């Protein structure tokens, strides 16, 4: 397994083993980000393809100021934004500005009281999917990059092109909104 610098050098030599490593390491990550944004498998595949092609074109100029993963996520994120704008040309993707009002928790049932199986049921997983689908896209992106892909808040901010403090606010709001939805779901069942 090559480290990132070795991988980039090998890619510049068009080494096919390096391509395999690149594809295996990053294709699923980029696909998940694109799918979360576009909710369409064909389009998500298209974004993976375009992001990788852009990397191939820019291999010689890639200076390594960002990690390769952050660079690929950022390119993919911007490609997704382009596609979303094409779908809804009159909608400004930035129209919902960040505000600092936090969603106040209103459902306060104690999850410690829930039967064990509630927290592992497939039904809960489906409810969580539904809740995530209702998140504003800008919150969803930061949440999934942080909680699923393991990026730091700084890396999330770099991918989305916002300040670290704005990324922290988005993450916090996403967590509270999801908690509230799952809490409401559990409250109906206990």
């Amino acid at each position, binding site marked *: 397994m090559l480290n990132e610098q070795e991988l980039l050098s090998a890619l510049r030599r068009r080494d096919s083993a390096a*391509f395999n490593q690149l594809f295996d390491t990053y294709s699923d990550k980029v696909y998940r980000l694109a799918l979360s944004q576009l909710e369409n*498998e064909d389009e998500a*595949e298209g974004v993976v393809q375009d992001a990788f092609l852009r990397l*191939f074109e820019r291999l010689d100029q890639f200076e390594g100021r960002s990690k390769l993963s952050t660079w690929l996520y950022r390119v993919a994120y911007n490609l997704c934004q382009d596609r979303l704008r094409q779908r809804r040309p009159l909608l400004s993707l930035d129209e919902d500005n960040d505000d600092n009002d936090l969603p106040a928790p209103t459902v*306060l*049932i104690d999850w410690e009281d829930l039967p064990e199986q509630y927290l592992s049921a497939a039904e809960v*997983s489906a409810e969580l999917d539904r809740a995530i689908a209702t998140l504003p896209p800008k919150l969803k992106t930061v949440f999934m990059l942080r909680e699923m892909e393991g990026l730091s808040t700084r890396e999330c901010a770099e991918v989305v092109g916002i300040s670290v403090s704005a990324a*922290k606010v988005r993450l916090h709001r996403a967590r509270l909104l999801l908690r509230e939805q*799952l809490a409401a779901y559990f409250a109906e069942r206990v």
Partner: protein
Amino acid sequence: MQEISCEDLLQYLSDYIDENLDEELTAVAKHHLATCHSCSVVLDSTQKTIFLYRQQGKRTIPAKRRERLFDRLQDAFLAGKGETA
């Protein structure tokens, strides 16, 4: 010890979960959580929400789609051979 309100605790909640608060604020938040059932419920349920999400597992590209994508990208990658040598 300094006291904080539930609203303040809510503002700090993610930083508390991520262990980004300084020592003093962490102690203040812990003190509040020990004495406020509502806030401790919010903390516990937020942590469990994150846990449940992470537990879902990572989706991967479906096999046929992946194979197709691999072939197309590999062709494009190898076609660049000689351009950058």
